[in-house]
C-alpha cells in the first residue's frame, strides 16, 4: 500500500498570457483514492490533461514519474498504453452504438479487420458484471440513464487494463442513489488494487471516500491532506481551497414576505414522446413576494419539467392547469407570453440553454429583453452597453468590460450573466434551476447573496436544487416532488435532510 505509483514534479503549464499551472506537485500512492479539490479555474482539469497526454510531453515543464518510469506521453493513446485512463465530465459515448460496441470502441476485438461479435459481447458482459451494471451488452447506450452511462465508461476503462483511473466530476450529473453506487464501485476497485484520482466539488463525497486530498489554488498545489486525520473536515478543505475561512456557507437574511405573486394550480404534463407517461401529475404551488421557495426531488421527479412546462410550454405536451400572477390567470403558452407575464427561468444547463457562448456579455445580457431597448425594430446600441455595464457592476462579473465573450468566462461569472439577462426583463418571479451547479464555493456564496438581494427587492424566487443543504440554507419553504406529484411542503424551521428525503421518496400508489 505504501508504494508511490505516480509523482508529478513541478509541473508548469503556460498558455499565451496565462500561467495555468505553476509548479504543481502531486504524489499518489498505489491503491488509494486520491481527491483533487480546488475552485473552478484553479487548474485541476489542466493538470489532468497534462497527466493523460492531452497536452503532450514537451508542452509543459516538470517531470511525471509513473511506476518509477518517466512518462513522456505525446497523446492520450500513449498514456492509456501505460494504464492511465481519464473519464471526462462530459461522457464520450456514442448513443446509437451498443454498450459492448462503446466499451471496445477504438480497441475492437477483431480478426483481420472483422469484428468477433461473440467474443466482444461476452467480454463486455464480464466487464458489466464487474461494475455491477445489469444491462445487456447489445443495448444501445442512448437508452441508459446518465448514471448507467457512467458505469459503461468505467467498464471501458477496465477493458484497457487500467492502473490509474482519473474521474473528472463523476457524480456531478448523478442523483444520490447513483452517486452512492458509483462511490461503492470505486471502493471495490480500490480493493482490487486500482488507483483512482477523483476531481469533485462534492466535499461530502470526498470526506467519505478519499484517502488523500490534494488542494490546488490558483495553479499551485497548496497542500495534501491525509483524510484519515480527523482534522481533515469539509471546512478544512474549503479553507485550503479559498485560502481563508468561509465562516458561513450561506449569507444571512431576514425574510420579508408579502402577498402571493405566483400560483400554479393542478398542473399536469405528459412526456413529449411516450404516450401515457405523466411527468407532472396535478401539481400545485404558490410563491409569495419576497419569499424564496425551494423544490426538492430526486432526478426524474419532474422538477425541471414542471418549471419548463410553466415557462412557455417549453417541455412536454397535453399540458393542463392554470398559472396565476398576482391573482390573475395568465397565459404562458409561449416563452414570449411567459416573459410578458413576469416570469423568468434560469436553466440548469447554462451553456446549452442559457447563453450564446460565441457572443459577448453585452449581447447575452439583452437577449431576452431586446424589446425594452429597441424602437421600431432598431436596437439602441448605447443603451444596450449602459444596461450590460449596469449588470456587470451590480453582479460583480469579473471582466474589464462587457465586450468579453461569455464562452471565456468561468462558470460563476457565466451564471451571473444569465441572472443579469433575466433581471433585465424585470420579472416578478424568478425560477432558478440548479443555480449553483458546477460553480465553485466562493462564487456560490456570491450567487446566494444575489438571490437574497432579489428577494429583499420583493421578487418571488423559486429554486430547484439537487443539493438539499443548499435548499435548507437559502429557502423559506420547501416543496417536495416525487414521481411528478407534490408530496408535501415544509417551512424552513421544520425541514431537515431526513424529512425531505422521506417525502421525496414516497412511491406512487399502484393505482394509475
Amino acid at each position, binding site marked *: 500500500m505504501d508504494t508511490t505509483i505516480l509523482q508529478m514534479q513541478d509541473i508548469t503549464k503556460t498558455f499565451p498570457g496565462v500561467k495555468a499551472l505553476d509548479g504543481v506537485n502531486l504524489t499518489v500512492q498505489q491503491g488509494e483514492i486520491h481527491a483533487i479539490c480546488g475552485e473552478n479555474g484553479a487548474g485541476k482539469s489542466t493538470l489532468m490533461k497534462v497527466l493523460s497526454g492531452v497536452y503532450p510531453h514537451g508542452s509543459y515543464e516538470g517531470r511525471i514519474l509513473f511506476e518509477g518510469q518517466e512518462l513522456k506521453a505525446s497523446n492520450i493513446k500513449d498514456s492509456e498504453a501505460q494504464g492511465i485512463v481519464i473519464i471526462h465530465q462530459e461522457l464520450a459515448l456514442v448513443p446509437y452504438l451498443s454498450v459492448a460496441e462503446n466499451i471496445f470502441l477504438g480497441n475492437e476485438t477483431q480478426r483481420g479487420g472483422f469484428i468477433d461479435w461473440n467474443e466482444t459481447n461476452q467480454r463486455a458482459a464480464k466487464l458489466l458484471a464487474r461494475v455491477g451494471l445489469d444491462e445487456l451488452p447489445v443495448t444501445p447506450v442512448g437508452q441508459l440513464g446518465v448514471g448507467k452511462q457512467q458505469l459503461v465508461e468505467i467498464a471501458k476503462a477496465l477493458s484497457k487494463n487500467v492502473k490509474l483511473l482519473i474521474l473528472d466530476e463523476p457524480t456531478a450529473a448523478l442523483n444520490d442513489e447513483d452517486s452512492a453506487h458509483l462511490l461503492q464501485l470505486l471502493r471495490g476497485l480500490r480493493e482490487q488494487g486500482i488507483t483512482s484520482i477523483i476531481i469533485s466539488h462534492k466535499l461530502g463525497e470526498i470526506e467519505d471516500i478519499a484517502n488523500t486530498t490534494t488542494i490546488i489554488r490558483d495553479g499551485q498545489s497548496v497542500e495534501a491532506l491525509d483524510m484519515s486525520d480527523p482534522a481533515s473536515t469539509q471546512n478544512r478543505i474549503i479553507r485550503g481551497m479559498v485560502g481563508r475561512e468561509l465562516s458561513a456557507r450561506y449569507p444571512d437574511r431576514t425574510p420579508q414576505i408579502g402577498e402571493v405573486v405566483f400560483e400554479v394550480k393542478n398542473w399536469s404534463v405528459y412526456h413529449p414522446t411516450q404516450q401515457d407517461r405523466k411527468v407532472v401529475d396535478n401539481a400545485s404551488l404558490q410563491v409569495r413576494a419576497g419569499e424564496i421557495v425551494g423544490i426538492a426531488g430526486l432526478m426524474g421527479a419532474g422538477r425541471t419539467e414542471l418549471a419548463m412546462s410553466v415557462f412557455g410550454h417549453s417541455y412536454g405536451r397535453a399540458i393542463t392547469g392554470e398559472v396565476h400572477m398576482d391573482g390573475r390567470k395568465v397565459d404562458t403558452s409561449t416563452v414570449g407570453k411567459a416573459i410578458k407575464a413576469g416570469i423568468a427561468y434560469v436553466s440548469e444547463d447554462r451553456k446549452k440553454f442559457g*447563453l450564446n457562448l460565441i457572443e459577448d456579455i453585452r449581447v447575452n445580457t439583452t437577449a431576452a429583453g431586446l424589446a425594452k431597448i429597441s424602437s421600431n425594430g432598431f436596437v439602441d446600441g448605447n443603451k444596450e452597453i449602459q444596461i450590460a455595464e449596469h449588470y456587470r457592476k451590480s453582479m460583480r462579473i469579473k471582466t474589464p468590460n*462587457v465586450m468579453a465573450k461569455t464562452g471565456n468566462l468561468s462558470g460563476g461569472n457565466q451564471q451571473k450573466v444569465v441572472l443579469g439577462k433575466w433581471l433585465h426583463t424585470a420579472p416578478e418571479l424568478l425560477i432558478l434551476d440548479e443555480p449553483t451547479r458546477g460553480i465553485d464555493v466562493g462564487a456560490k456564496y456570491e450567487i446566494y447573496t444575489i438571490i437574497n438581494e432579489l428577494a429583499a427587492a420583493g421578487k418571488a424566487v423559486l429554486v430547484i436544487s439537487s443539493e438539499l443543504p443548499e435548499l435548507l440554507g437559502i429557502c423559506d419553504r420547501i416543496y417536495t416532488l416525487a414521481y411528478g406529484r407534490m408530496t408535501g411542503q415544509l417551512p424552513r424551521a421544520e425541514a431537515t435532510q431526513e424529512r425531505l428525503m422521506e417525502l421525496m421518496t414516497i412511491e406512487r400508489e399502484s393505482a394509475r
Partner: protein
Amino acid sequence: MTISSELKDIFTKNLRTSGIYIAFVLIVLLFTVLTNGLLLSPTNITNIVLQYSYVLVLALGMIIVIVGGHIDLSVGSLVALTGAVSAVLVIKGGMPWWVGMLAGILTGALCGVWQGFWVAIVGIPSFIVTLAGMLLFRGLTYEVLNNISLSPFPAGYQKIAGGFLNGLLGGYGFDTFTLVIGVIAVAGLVVSAWRTRQGRVKYGQQVESMAMFLGKNLLSAAIILWFFWQIATSRGMPIVLIILGVLIIAYHVLTTKTVFGRHVYAIGGNLSAAKLSGVNIKKINFWIFINMGMLAGVAGVVFSSRSNGAQPGAGNMFELDAIAACFIGGASTTGGVGRVTGAIVGGLVMAVLSNGMQLMGVGASAQQIVKGIVLLLAVAFDIYNKRRVGQGS
C-alpha cells in the same frame, strides 16, 4: 493601447476578422502586377461591378441564411426562374420593364415563402428543402420558358444592369454626379464611425487609439474616393452599383442594428438558448428564407438584364459562388458568426480572382481549380485561427 500594439494586433490577435481584408489587398496587388495594371483601370473596375453584382446581391441574403445556421442551395435555380418570369412578361407579353422587375422579385419572395414553410414550420433541414428547391425551380424555369431562350429585352429593362446615370450634374472629363455620390458615401462612413466611437466613449468602453481611428478612416476614405474617381473617369455611375450600394447599407444595418438581426445571430449561435429567451424561432427562420428568395429575385432581374434575355440554364452554380463568398468572408459553418461586410469582401475576392484570370487569358477550367483551392484555404485559415485563439483561453 498604443498605435504600434494595435497594428500588431491586426496581424496577430484580430487576424480572423482582418485576415480577409489583408488577403483581398494582396490578391488585388498580385493581379495588378500580373495584368500590368489592367485590373485597376477605370474600364475594368466598371466591368467588375457590372459583371459580378448579382453574386454580391446573393451573398447578402446568403450571409443571413448561414448566420442563422442554414444553407440555401436553390438560389442559382431561383435566379433562372425569376429572370424567366420577368422575361416572359416583358418580352412575350410586352409589359413595361418595371412590371417584369417587380414580378421577378415577387416570384423570388413567393419561392422564399415556400421554402420558409418547409424549413420553419415543418422543420425539415434547409439542406434538404433547398436541394429540392434547386431541382424544383430549375424544372419550373424550363416549364415557364418552354425550354427555349428568350431575348432581347427592350432598352428600358437592359438599363437595370447595363445603364449609367451620367451627366446629371455635368461632365468635365469626369462625371460630377458620380463624385458627389462618392463624397456622400465617405461622409456617411466617417460620421457613423465617429458616432459609434463617441457612444462607446460615453459609456466607458474601450476604443481604439485616435491615431488608429483616423488612420483607418482616412485609408477607407481614400480607397472609396479613388474608386469613385476611377468609375467617374470611365463611363460614369452604373445603375446597378446604386442598387448594390443601397442594399449593402440596408443589410449592414439590418444585421447589426435591428432586433431581427440580433435574433438571427442568436438562433445561429445557440438555438436552445434563443428559444428560452423568447425568440420566435419559426418567424425568424421564415423571414430568413423569404428575404433570401426576394434577393434571389433581385439577382435574377439584374442577371437577365445583364445577359439581355432568359435562358433555361441561367444561374447554374451561382449558389456556390454566394456560399463561397460568405465562407471566404469569415462566416462560420455552424452558424452564429459572419458579417455583411465580410461576405461582400469575400464576393469581391472571388470577383477579382475570376476577372484577373480572364484578363490574363486563363481558361475556365483553371479558374475553377483556383477558386476551389482559395475557398478551401480560406476556411482552413479560419479553423487554424480559431484553434490558435482558443488555446489561449
